[in-house]
């Protein structure tokens, strides 16, 4: 088992390298003079020249990549010209906020999705199943950024139960309770779509598994129906659902871009949107790289978990 | 020569896996077929029997050019079959055809029977529309199916009918040799006979040569002139059907015959659990059957027995140091 995990970790290294290549190439594809593009149109000629030298932009592409990669290993992702601070500092600070939001949403959607899917499958064709199916369908059809706005209107403006934006109260905030209070609406909004996807898939997986020969065997040996469903069938269904939760992590991380914008959550998503509209490309590059790397690691964890459950994959 | 070999397989070998990975470490390799040499004479039916994993299907796929041996030669009608299959499979397919085990899976569910049967007529023979229509009705007639079936889809057919369509397709290009890979084992017993009888009739009518592969001893016995028994990738016994089934020499053949259920016979076999094949990634140095063999000695474990004539009869060979005596 540990040998397998080590092997998977090793296999993740080329993927991470691949990520750096893609991110680098995307930035290299920017039309026009990169230095001007990076520094913005108001850059002074001295700054442009300095950046060109720093980035080695006078050298061939692969050399540029290695210079960039070496800098990356030293934790140097360049400086954001709009914020005038190192990209890495800004990105890490923002990323922790995103991690709180996306992590909460992911836990929410996994738990809610699995429960809804199992209940729906076990009570197939009942009104519970039909209700869940419809709610799930609404969940995956609703634009999350619009849902966020509605929730703000209802729960923040009209009812005043939750704050409309931010991560902490401006005055006297900062405690974990304050964080939870601010977290509730955005995390819920972010979780809605993924919950729908997971619930649907869990339902189908459960129904498929319940038709398998080994479920009949379990019944034939006198195992109680609860045990058949929650032990035999659920475990087998989980094996197909886990990779999807891994993929949903990507949707949640990406969806954070909208939710952070709507709720003005100081995360990496809202930073990216701002950076793109101000063409602060080094900031975009750093942000994309860090989020993608986190996603790769998360999927790795999902893979390992799946292997723990399914001995055939070892 | 009257009994000239139509097909001759010389020391054929097929290894799956193997090679080295990126870091130069050897990948695990499985010898699916090893050191198989056998001839098929014009007009005969060669039966190949063996249990799952013995390599019989791999051998079959190599004969029709769907797979290539990793070593050894296969000669068809004096030509190098392997080279030809790699260069121009169509030329080979005009003369060597295949009937698949699962009749339903071997028909494309989204094509009519007409489209399926026309494919070889267009691609292999290049017939025009009129000639195709004539040939189609000949083919349907040959396998005893009504021509109105031509415009139906495969899911509308029973297993036996589907297998007859599979046979018609194999016949379409008028081949010399047909490899039949478990052609009746997916069928109900009442239908098996229909298909076997049709195959028998076609053989005489068109002067075909068959390689008939099956795990079912009684079926092989009823159709074959000569029989080869395979175990763990090798031929362990080969000879005229009557001789092999009446006087099996190899202990494995003996065990197979004892194990086969027959109406009116109580089981002769013990309930021991020693039916395991050796680990294919780590085969024993000697005879693969040694672990299960009641006649095995240290010699069998140390060295590989060669396939050779037993008691002077050149046509009946077995790969065993301690063969059964002729009863």
């Amino acid at each position, binding site marked *: 088992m540990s040998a397998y995990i080590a092997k998977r970790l090793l296999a993740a290294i080329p993927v991470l390298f691949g*990520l750096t290549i*893609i991110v680098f190439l995307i*930035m290299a594809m920017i039309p026009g003079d990169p230095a001007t593009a990076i520094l913005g149109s108001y850059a002074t000629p001295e700054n442009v020249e300095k950046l060109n030298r720093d980035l080695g932009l006078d050298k061939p592409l692969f050399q540029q990549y290695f210079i960039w990669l070496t800098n990356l290993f030293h934790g140097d992702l360049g400086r954001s010209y709009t914020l005038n601070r190192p990209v890495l500092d800004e990105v890490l600070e923002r990323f922790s906020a995103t991690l709180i939001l996306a992590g909460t949403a992911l836990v929410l959607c996994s738990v809610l999705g699995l429960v809804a899917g199992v209940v729906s499958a076990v009570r197939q064709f009942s009104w519970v199943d039909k209700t869940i199916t419809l709610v799930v*369908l609404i969940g995956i*059809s*609703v*634009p999350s950024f*619009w849902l966020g*706005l509605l929730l703000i209107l209802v729960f923040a403006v009209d009812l005043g139960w939750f704050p409309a934006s931010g991560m902490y109260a401006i005055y006297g905030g900062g405690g974990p309770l304050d964080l939870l209070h601010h977290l509730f609406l955005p995390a819920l909004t972010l979780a809605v779509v993924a919950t729908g996807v997971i619930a649907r898939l869990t339902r189908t997986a459960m129904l*498929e598994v319940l*038709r398998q*020969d080994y479920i*009949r*065997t379990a*019944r*034939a040996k*006198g*195992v109680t129906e609860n*045990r*058949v469903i929650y032990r*035999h069938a659920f475990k087998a269904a989980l094996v197909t659902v886990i990779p999807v939760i891994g993929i949903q992590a990507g*949707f949640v991380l990406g969806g954070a871009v909208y939710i952070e914008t709507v709720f003005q959550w100081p995360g990496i998503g809202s930073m990216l*949107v701002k950076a793109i*509209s101000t063409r602060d490309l080094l900031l975009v590059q750093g942000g*994309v790289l860090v989020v*993608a790397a986190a996603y790769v690691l998360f999927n790795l964890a999902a893979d390992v978990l799946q292997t723990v459950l399914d*001995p055939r994959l070892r | 020569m009257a009994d000239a070999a139509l097909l001759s397989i010389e020391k054929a070998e097929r290894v799956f896996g193997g090679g080295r990975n990126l870091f130069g470490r050897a990948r695990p390799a499985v010898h699916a077929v090893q050191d198989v040499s056998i001839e098929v004479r014009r007009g005969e039916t060669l039966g190949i029997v063996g249990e799952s994993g013995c390599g019989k299907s791999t051998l079959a796929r190599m004969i029709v050019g*769907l797979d290539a041996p990793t070593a050894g030669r296969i000669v068809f009608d004096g030509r190098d079959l392997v080279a030809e299959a790699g260069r121009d*499979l169509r030329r080979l*397919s005009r003369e060597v*055809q295949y009937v*698949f*085990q*699962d009749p339903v899976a071997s028909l*494309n*569910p989204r094509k009519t029977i007409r489209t399926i049967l026309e*494919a*070889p007529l267009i*691609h292999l023979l290049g017939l025009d529309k009129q000639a195709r229509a004539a040939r189609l009705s000949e083919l349907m007639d040959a396998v005893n199916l009504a021509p109105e079936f031509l415009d139906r889809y495969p*899911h*509308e057919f029973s297993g036996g009918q589907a297998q007859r369509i599979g046979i018609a397709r194999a016949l379409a290009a008028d081949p010399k040799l047909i490899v039949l890979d478990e052609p009746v084992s997916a069928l*109900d*017993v009442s239908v*098996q*006979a229909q298909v076997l009888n049709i195959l028998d009739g076609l053989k005489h009518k068109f002067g075909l040569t068959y390689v008939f592969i099956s795990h079912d001893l*009684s*079926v092989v*016995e009823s159709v074959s002139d000569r029989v080869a028994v395979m175990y763990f990738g090798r031929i362990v016994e080969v000879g005229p059907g009557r001789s092999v089934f009446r006087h099996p020499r190899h202990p494995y053949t003996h065990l197979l*015959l*004892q194990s*086969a*259920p*027959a*109406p009116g*016979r109580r089981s*002769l076999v*013990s*309930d*021991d*659990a020693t039916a395991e094949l050796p680990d294919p990634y780590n085969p024993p140095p000697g005879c693969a059957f040694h672990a299960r063999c009641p006649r095995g000695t240290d010699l069998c474990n140390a060295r590989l027995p060669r396939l050779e004539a037993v008691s002077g009869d050149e046509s009946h060979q077995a790969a065993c140091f301690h063969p059964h005596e002729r009863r």
Partner: protein
Amino acid sequence: MAEANTATGNPPRPVNRSSGRPDNLRLLLNNKLATAGLAIFALIVLTALAAPLLPLPDPDVTAPADRLFRPLSEGHLLGTDALGRDILSRLIWGTRVSLAVGISATLIAAFFGSLIGLVAGYAGGRVDTFLMRGIDMVMAFPYILLALAIVAVLGPGLLNALYAIAVVNIPFFARNIRGIALGLSRREFVDAARLSGESNAQILFIEVLPNVLPVIIITMSTTVGWMILETAGLSFLGLGAQPPQADLGSMLGDGRKILFTAPHVSIIPGLMIFALVMSINLLGDGVRDVLDPRLKSGALTRPLARTAVIRDIAPGDIEPSPGAVLDVRGLKTEFRFGGEVFKAVGGVDMRVGRGECLGIVGESGSGKTVAAMSIMGLVPTPPGRIAGGVALLEGEDLFAVSDERIRQLRGSAVSHVFQDPLSTLHPLFTVGDQLIEAIQSHRSMPKSRATERAVELLNLVRIPNPAERLKSYPHELSGGMRQRVCIAMALADDARIIIADEPTTALDVTVQAQVLALLDKLRRERDVGILFITHDFGVVSAICDRVAVMYAGQFVETGATGEILKSPAHPYTAKLIDCVPVLGQPERRLDAIEGRPPVVNNLPIGCAFAERCPRAQDDCRAAPIPLTEFGQGRAVRCIHPILMEAGHG
């Protein structure tokens, strides 16, 4: 082998007679939600298409004096936005843009993704590795993030957003299609096409593509909603449509800034996106339900824990036959699909005594498995149901007892051994876990004691190193070993009856012989009755004392094994014996049975075999033929049986 299908109790599937499109459309319209989706979607699309013809104000003309009218204002049905533009007009024109962008992105992604998937799946090997590594690389980015990065490079704009969304969706199609294409390319019909002389390109596009097409359509119908959402999302962030052009997303984005003062400006376009996407998803689900073969075959219906029992007449007190542990009388089991009733088992009597082995022989579709599985309620409901008869286990009617009682009896008094030991063992639990569970389901005992008992059981079925084997997973064992584990499991408690459904069919002959010998020995040692289902008279000879031959849901002949083999009385039995080659008699002529068995939803009044029977006369077809006594301990359902003197052979 004859029973290739492992899912026991598999009902006869209704044959799909016409496979044309009108049928599919009708199916789609039968689905109310999908029809509603179709209607809403059609309405939205038609309105959007008709935008130039409708009497709408110019969507881009600003009128600062008319700012922020509420909905239902005069001249502005949905009000105006912050620049005084008519929201209704902008909504319809914006829907046009959103639809066009979403659909174009879907088409682009579907085309390139499917092409990559098809080629990768079909070619396999290095091409596959190379293409899929590339796809994996793209998928290593969180979806929206990659779209953002692409827009960052290309610059904000509607067309760029379209490209970005299309590109990030390519992997989704590629992966899906590749999986299907890979599976199809290994199918025998691809080999057959190759041997028919087709080239790779011909095989890929003529043979494989038509089979992949439904999947492409399903994937498109389930992703087009997504793509509309995502492009709207990019526009919402200000990275898609640029002013003055507007799509639904950018309208929503503009409205957000004045959310608190004029919520309608953002709520209306959001509602439109929701309605559009919801209608597409409803429709997409409908399309998927129609095209997905799993739904047609009922593979996605949850079977109940026990077969439903709906008996028209409650049977009175029936005395069990003396000496019988299991006594089944007049068992009828049906499957219902839509309005059609398939009478899989039409009145069957079975009696098994202690230590006795009764064989049920029949071809696939004869109902032998359904009959056996009905006894302990293991026929899936829906669509199966027990429609009549009683099953007495030592006097107790199994069709009348509670679910909990059935659970207690399953695996203790009556246990089962199934056909394919790989699919019947749970792949994710060790052999030990599964054995111990079987033991503890009937007797509460500490785990250590149950483990000891499991070791004893494996010893009993002669598995070497039992303590070690307990830690193995099913896939680590050979077929023969797995079936031994299943037999051990059947003996976990004090079984009096074992129902064995083709237990050796999936095994090699040498292994089959050993497993049969094991079963035979165990039943003698432990005095267990066996109900043995098979299609093979050879196997019957090896183990069964008595045999019942089944045809079209009924027994046509019963009696002692030796006698029936020696002198079959029913023409079907005789034919069934004659059509199989027998080892040692290669010259024997094989006598095929012409025709096909009747479909059990349309059985004839008289003898079901009459159509195929050489001895059939008019009276055979006139009325139901009863099972009548035919000598000592024998019965035959035939009014013109083959008599002993005529003999057989």
